[in-house]
Each structure stands twice: as C-alpha cells, then as structure tokens.
C-alpha cells in the first residue's frame, strides 16, 4: 500500500526498471494446473518471485450451514500468507488485509462460476502465498481461476488478473516489490477477457485521471496475456491426462491374463 520516499532509483536513464523490465513488461509468469493430489482442483503460479498455490474443494456441503444459499452455491475464497512468505515473519492466521482480499477474490470468482447449478453448496477456494513479492492478490486470483477450471467447476470464463501502477512518475505494469513499496500507486485488476468485464478493481496511491486510464488500459492488455498462459496451463494438464494410461483397466487385464 502506498509509497514512501526513497533514494532507490526505480527507473534508470534508459527507461529500464530496477529488474531490467520496460514499463509495460510483465514479470516472468509460469502456471501449472493440477499440482495437488487431494484437492478437487489446484494450480501453482510462479510470477516473478511470487509463489502461490491454489486449491479448490467442492461443490460440497456449505459450512457454516446458516451461510447456505438455497438458490446457488457460495464461492468462498480463503487467501492466506505463510509466516515465512515475507521478510518480517507474518503472524499466522487471518488479518484484516487477508480478509478483505478473500472477500474481493470471492466476488470476482462468483462472477464467472455458474453458481446456480449447485444450490446450497459451497465451492471453497484456498489460496496460499508461500513466497510474496508484490502482486500476490493478482497471482492468487489467477491461480484460483485455473484451479476452479481444473476442478471441473462450470464457468463462463477464466478470470485473469494483473496490476498496473506508478513509480518514478512513470505508469508501469506489474509492480515488483521495490516498486510497490516505494512507488506512487497500485491498481490491481481482475478481468474476464471473453466478455470484456472488470470483476476486481482496486486502487491506492496518487494518479491523475489520464495516468489512471493509461494504467488500467495496460493492466487489461496484460490480463489478456495472463489469460493465454492460464489456458495453456489447462491445455497441458488435460493433454497429459488424455495420454495417461488409465489406471483401472491395465490392472484388470493383468488379472484376466493370470
């Protein structure tokens, strides 16, 4: 949140950022679907130095019961940071920041899930940040929608997410840790590319309206790139599944042969 003045040079004379990126360049992003065994669906996202896991359980019985909705399923997201994920140890358990992030990610995901197919049920999404380096809510939302798809939850589309912001008086994409700490503004965005809808939107810092428009435009373009990487992760996952030898049949065949 916000920026504090610093001597660190966030953008050099050549317009390069502290990690060598150009203003509109994403950090390296790697997504893998189906990384956990027990969960109904899962995903792993490595985004710059962020490492985030997402797991989906459900649709299953909704707890607490009084939260059940007789007309649709609830998408309940739990965003959590590991104690060791940041430089100064984070006290375990939910804090106000994580509760707010859980709420807005739940809302963003609810938008794309066909919740009316599963009345009274709960679709639980667990996001664990195991290494944090700015932009964890975007990485978490990106991972969570891949995990939902991996769990076979019917969805209108994936939600792709990315932030833009401002540092050293320049509008930049996908803020790194120094840019987040010492920058001037941050705009996290969650976007549904197929329908051109913004489902998560926050902003803090100081921006003129023109800078804001430029930043939002950059973030939306980046979301489209993130979206392709998400889709690719799912394609790889299901290609692997399709070519796997089915587990049940060979065992039976052996027994018959014996």
């Amino acid at each position, binding site marked *: *949140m916000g920026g*504090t003045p610093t001597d660190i040079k966030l953008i050099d004379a050549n317009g390069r950022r502290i990690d060598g990126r150009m203003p509109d360049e994403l950090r390296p992003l790697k997504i893998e679907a189906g990384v956990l065994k027990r969960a109904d669906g899962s995903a792993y996202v490595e985004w710059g130095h962020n490492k985030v896991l997402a797991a989906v359980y459900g649709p299953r019985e909704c707890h607490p019961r009084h939260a059940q909705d007789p007309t649709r399923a609830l998408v309940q997201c739990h965003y959590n940071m590991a104690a060791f994920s940041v430089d100064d140890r984070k006290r375990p358990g939910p804090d106000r920041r994580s509760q707010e992030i859980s709420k807005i990610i739940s*809302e963003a995901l609810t938008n794309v899930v066909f919740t009316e197919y599963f009345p009274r049920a709960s679709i639980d999404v667990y996001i664990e940040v195991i290494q944090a380096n700015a932009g964890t809510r975007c990485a978490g939302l990106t991972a969570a929608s891949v995990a939902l798809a991996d769990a076979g939850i019917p969805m209108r589309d994936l939600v792709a997410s990315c932030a833009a912001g401002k540092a050293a008086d320049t509008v930049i994409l996908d803020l790194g840790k120094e840019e987040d700490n010492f920058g001037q503004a941050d705009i996290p965005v969650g976007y549904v590319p197929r329908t051109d809808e*913004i489902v998560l939107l926050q902003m803090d810092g100081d921006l*003129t*309206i023109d800078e804001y428009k430029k930043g939002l435009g950059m973030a939306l373009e980046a979301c489209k790139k993130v979206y392709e990487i998400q889709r690719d992760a799912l394609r790889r996952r299901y290609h692997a599944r399709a070519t796997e030898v089915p587990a049940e049949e060979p065992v039976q065949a052996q027994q018959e042969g014996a």
Partner: protein
Amino acid sequence: MSKDIMADLKRDHIVKLLSKGVRPDGRKFDERRPLTIQTNYIRSAEGSARVQLGDTDVIVGVKMMVGAPFADTPNTGVLTTNAELIPMASETFESGPPDPESIEIARVVDRGIREGHAVDMTKLCIEPGKEVWIMFLDVHVVDYDGNLFDACNIGANAALKTAVVPAKRAGKGEDFPMPVQHTPISLTAVKIGEHILVDPTHDEERVADARLTVTILENGNLCAMQKGLNGSFRADEVFKVIDLSTRLGADVRSRI
C-alpha cells in the same frame, strides 16, 4: 431467506422503475441524498462528526494515544481505522468480531484518508523511532440505509478537520489542531442492470450487481478505489464513475 425473496421482488420493481429513468426515492441517477454534517458531536473524542446521508446515520470519532511507531516509518504517526456495524443499525448486523463487510468498509475509508494524505502524519511524530501519535478513527454506524462507504468517508474527513491533538493531557507540550492538509472525498456508485446510480440506498444496494467507490483529492487526482459485489464494470463505466466522483465530490468537500 425471506429477505432474499424480498430482494428478488424488489429487484424487478426497481429495475422497472430505473428503465423509466426513476429511482425508488425519486432521485436522479447522479443525485446524492441530503447530507447533514455535525462536527464536535462527542465531547470525549478528540474530534468527531455525525453524518446523515439520507437515512444512513454514522458517528465518527477520533481518539489519540501516544505509542511506538512502526519500525519502517519511525518519523510518522500511526493511523488505525475501525468500523462497527452494530445490531442497532440494521437487522442484518450482528455483534461480535468484525465481519468481512465491516473490515472492507474500514479498509476503504482508511485507504482514502491514508493514500490521500489527509493528515500530515510526519507532524504526529513526537520522538523519531520512539514515540508518535497513534490516531484511531472509529466509525459507529447507528442507522443503516446504504452507502456506508461515503457516509464514513465524509464523517472521517469532518472529524479530522475539527480534531485537536491532546498533547497537554499526555504531557507532550501544548495541544495543537490536527495537521489536516487534504480532503479526499469518496463517491460510491452501484450498477443495476445497465444503470449506474450514485449514493445507493439499502434497497438499491441489495439488488445491485456491482459497486464502485472512487476517492478523489481537491486537485482532481485519484487516491483510492474499490470495486465490490459479484457483478462487473466495463472500462467506460469505470470512467463514468470517476467523472461523477469528480463532480459530486467537490460539492461535498465544500461542506466539510
């Protein structure tokens, strides 16, 4: 359960009205409800305001305490914002630890005040690295008819403007007025179907698809934003809400 059915019934009714260009209470889509602000409302607080926005009624109090700064900001005071949605205000509010709804309200109000640099926090430093003023911004909602975000933001700004830092009581020199330097004003709009309405009532909020709060400074710059609810916005709708916030915020600011 019964409330959900009521919301569904009301939704049809409200959508029908909106398609004729009318809101349930007769307002225009870009019209705020009547606003009254009473400052210095609570004697025991260092600064306070009672804000009535239509039938929404909130009391904001500022309390100051001497404490230790955060290690990474040794020269600035500390801001802590909390919102209490007490059962008195609505049948849907429960007592107990803050739920996600009140946390979101507190954090969005906090973000506006903090990111808008409403208070010069460096002037709340007593001894660098050792002692600073901790500023508690407590919001008490006593009557709920929607749009707590803006009512609380207005209350926070008004309470800060009238606050006095109780230095004498704490043995830290003479009392001084709160070093307020900016007035970040938020405007909240909801989307119902294709319609964008500012300052929603409880009924409008309950049937809304999406909500957007935009906080703007006196120089026209943006300092905070929060989208809520399950629905979505297109980029042009976001820009429309920014326009509305710029336009309506100036009037609110002149009242504080």
